[in-house]
């Protein structure tokens, strides 16, 4: 079956990202397809490569990037939500005249239409949030 996953909160503050990651992994291990993981609201904060969690804690950005690389996942950060919260890739940083970017490997920034498409194309959309 084809799933899409929506992550609405950032890492650490709420459990949403942890649960979404565990769900996504379990679905893949059962042979399901993940059409897309879309990050909205504070969920975009999962996609910064500048996090330095404590050494005895999990690194959620790294875990998403690793899972994405292993299964070739489409990890999409909403552009409008990302701009409000300061998540930029190289192109966006240039376009907005910012002197740095912080997007993590394996994440891409795109529009909200990708969320609607994720709902249309997948058999099930599962949402995680606050």
């Amino acid at each position: 079956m084809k799933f899409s996953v929506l992550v609405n909160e950032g890492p650490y503050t709420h459990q949403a990202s942890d649960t979404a990651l565990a769900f996504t992994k379990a679905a893949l291990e059962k042979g399901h397809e993940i059409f897309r993981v879309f990050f909205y609201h504070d969920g975009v904060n999962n996609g910064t490569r500048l996090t330095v969690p404590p050494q005895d804690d999990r690194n959620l950005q790294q875990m998403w990037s690793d899972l994405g690389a292993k299964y070739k996942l489409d990890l999409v950060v909403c552009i409008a939500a990302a701009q409000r919260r300061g998540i930029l890739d190289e192109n966006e940083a240039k376009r907005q005249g910012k002197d740095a970017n912080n997007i993590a490997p394996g994440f891409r920034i795109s529009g909200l239409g990708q969320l609607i498409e994720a709902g249309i194309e997948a058999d099930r959309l599962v949402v995680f949030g606050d």
Partner: protein
Amino acid sequence: MSEGSKKKKFLYINRRAPYGSIYALESLEVVLIGAAFEQDVSLAFIDDGVYQLMKDQDTKAIGMKNFAPTYRALGDYGVTKVFVEKESLDERGLSADDLMELVYEDENEDYAEKPLLTVVDRKSLAAVMGEQDVVLSF
């Protein structure tokens, strides 16, 4: 829509008051972007979500943009199934008179102006939820 393309039933459930958090505004952004995909869209306002539709919202003193007028455009975006839960109004001491008078022009009836909001009871709304392909709650 062409026969081959997918048309799904999308329900957006709005459960939170506006301004205290961004969910109401970012939900509206999804609905407006989603309209371009010509899906079968419904909106439901339940629990504190009914406050999103209050008349006379004035955000000057909190320094935030008043996005209530945007709900007036829903009809133009083809979103005409908009439900408000009666029990949610009752619990808050509100009635339909406290809400904005929103209308849309029905293109199937010579653009006759019709009320956009339909107040329904919890049981009917639960039935609407049970008919969807995709449910997004904000």
